[in-house]
């Protein structure tokens, strides 16, 4: 063999050594047209008793509220795709529910059975409704391809759940969620306490960006609370965006009454302090309207006004830390008796997801779909350490459960019990959280920066003996993220 031929052969081998693995990883990342969440990734029992998945378990379709109970709140929401006019006059393209975006605010009293019928009139990709923050029965969780099929044009689906906890929640589509939530297929859900709080004005402030317009309740104009000076007001701020939004108050002090639909115990009055509200998160602020007026600033681009006009203020330098806010209180379970300890390590590396090259998020070192399936048995107390070494912040959302924050970067929580379902995990930080596995089903545990979820940043919590008949893809074209 001549020297030149050897050289060419070496060059070909070197080329194959580069392109071969690339081709292999590309091929390996391709997904079938339909696949079940149950066969995805690998089982992770968190170091607890082994959890077995038997064929023929209980399908998620059976995990429903009492079918014989009459609904106390009965709503029909009709979803449409198209252009619509914001309350402040701008015309945008997106999605509406009953002709508006955000859709109607649904209000229920704690203990009531809420029934919502979703009718898809003209959303070509199909739609669902997920009840963000509400521990609904699994069949009503609204995740396309996991708990139901996406509702096609002309179809409908009825959600039924008991509103078991008073608080601020929201609902949104969980079919192609990164596009449909962005386009406005969402609304607020408020569960009022059984006895109304006396002498308090209640105001919902749902924040969303429509094609660059920062809005509160669908209007780019500041929302005015109908309350006179001296009146106590609860402002329920809902962040429906993909990134965190700082919230602060100009002209008044305030208290954080609730976080993610759970009341804060002993909230102290604060002033000139901002609270970072994660994507998907909610916070109830309590304040008394001063004679000189006040403004709740939402991200600096949207606002709620109370009383006489007051000038906007820039974001204060101080940030409220929920880890030490409020006063401690007994919690209904002992996190130290956890039988499982899961790890949710977030990182980032180049690779292929669904045949697409790019820089993708990894969970415990694996790219989608090779992600962990966190396995539990009903009644388990579980802990999870969520660590973020990906260089970017992530708002982590577990469906169907609320998490109790135990510690951040090893520093124990010392304030009110911090219950959350939408937890911002900044780059370089880690959180220890705990939860009780008391809601059987298959539950998404994902980043609520929805394009991140669409890029594969989604794992699941699965109960022993539960199965799903639904598939990702398939005839209903289920694409949950």
């Amino acid at each position: 063999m001549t020297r030149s031929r050897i050289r060419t052969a070496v060059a070909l081998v070197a080329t194959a050594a580069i392109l071969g693995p690339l081709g292999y990883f590309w091929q390996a990342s391709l997904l079938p047209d339909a696949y079940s969440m149950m066969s995805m990734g690998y089982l992770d029992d968190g170091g607890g008793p082994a959890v077995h998945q038997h064929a023929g378990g209980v399908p998620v379709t059976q995990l429903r509220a009492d079918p014989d109970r009459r609904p106390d709140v009965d709503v029909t929401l009709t979803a449409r795709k198209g252009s619509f006019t914001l309350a402040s006059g701008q015309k945008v393209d997106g999605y509406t529910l009953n002709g508006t975006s955000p859709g109607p605010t649904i209000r229920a009293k704690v203990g009531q059975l809420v029934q919502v019928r979703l009718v898809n009139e003209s959303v070509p990709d199909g739609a669902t409704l997920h009840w963000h923050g509400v521990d609904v029965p699994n069949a009503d969780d609204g995740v396309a391809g996991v708990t139901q099929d996406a509702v096609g044009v002309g179809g409908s689906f009825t959600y039924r759940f008991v509103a078991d906890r008073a608080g601020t929640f929201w609902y949104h589509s969980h079919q192609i969620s990164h596009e449909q939530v962005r386009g406005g297929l969402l609304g607020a859900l408020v569960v009022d306490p059984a006895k109304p709080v006396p002498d308090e004005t209640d105001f919902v402030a749902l924040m969303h960006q429509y094609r660059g317009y920062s809005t509160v309740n669908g209007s780019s104009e500041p929302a005015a609370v109908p309350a006179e000076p001296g009146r106590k007001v609860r402002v329920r701020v809902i962040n429906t965006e993909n990134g965190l939004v700082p919230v602060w108050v100009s002209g008044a002090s305030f208290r954080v009454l609730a976080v993610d639909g759970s009341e804060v115990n002993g909230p102290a009055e604060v002033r000139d302090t901002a609270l970072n509200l994660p994507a998907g998160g909610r916070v109830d602020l309590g304040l008394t309207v001063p004679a000189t007026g006040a403004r709740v600033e939402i991200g600096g681009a949207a606002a709620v006004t109370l009383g006489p006009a007051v000038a906007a203020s820039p974001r204060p330098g101080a940030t409220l830390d929920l880890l030490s806010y409020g006063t401690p209180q007994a919690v209904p379970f002992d996190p130290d008796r956890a039988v499982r300890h899961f790890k949710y390590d977030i990182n980032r590396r180049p690779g292929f997801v669904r045949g697409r090259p790019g820089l993708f998020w990894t969970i415990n070192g694996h790219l989608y779909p090779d992600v962990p399936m966190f396995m539990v048995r009903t009644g388990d107390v579980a802990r999870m350490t969520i660590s973020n070494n990906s260089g970017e912040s992530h708002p982590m959302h577990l469906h169907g459960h609320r998490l109790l924050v135990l510690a951040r970067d090893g520093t124990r929580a010392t304030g009110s019990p911090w219950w959350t379902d939408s937890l911002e995990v900044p780059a370089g930080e880690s959180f220890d959280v705990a939860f009780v596995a008391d809601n059987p089903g298959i539950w998404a545990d994902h980043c609520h920066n929805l394009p991140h979820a669409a890029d594969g940043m989604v794992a699941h919590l699965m109960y022993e003996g539960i199965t799903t008949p639904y598939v990702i893809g398939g005839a209903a074209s289920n694409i949950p993220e």
Partner: protein
Amino acid sequence: MKTAYRVLAHSIMILVILQTMVIVWGFFGLFHWIEDGGVMNKAVLDDRDTLNFTEQRGMMLHGIGGMVLVPLVVLAFLIVSFFAKIPGGVAAAGIVVGLVVAQVALGIFAHGVPGLGILHALGAFLIIGAANAADRRAKRVSAPVEVAAR
């Protein structure tokens, strides 16, 4: 193949220059937008579907260029170097690949550690220098030998 090697070396230089141009365009657009009353926060930043100001395209182009286009061209450069028979050509291409890998990593991790941005800027010049050195190596081989006439 030598021509392809040189074309790719030049392409890398041009792309990196464009990368610096579009990102600076983007940042000045951001400052201008804020001057005009625009408000930037994490939610606005993560609304990737909305163009708040024209120059935002510069930031998007920088992202696509840095994470897709430049790595692809650099990969092609390395493969072509195997066949180009330029003395030291593979090593020169390897240096460019190494610098681009480091540059992409710096671009990602600078989001969490902004100080790395200083090295990210320096990295652009190093890549241009390395691509230029590789090109000169190829030029020496492909140029006809000149006999000095006295």
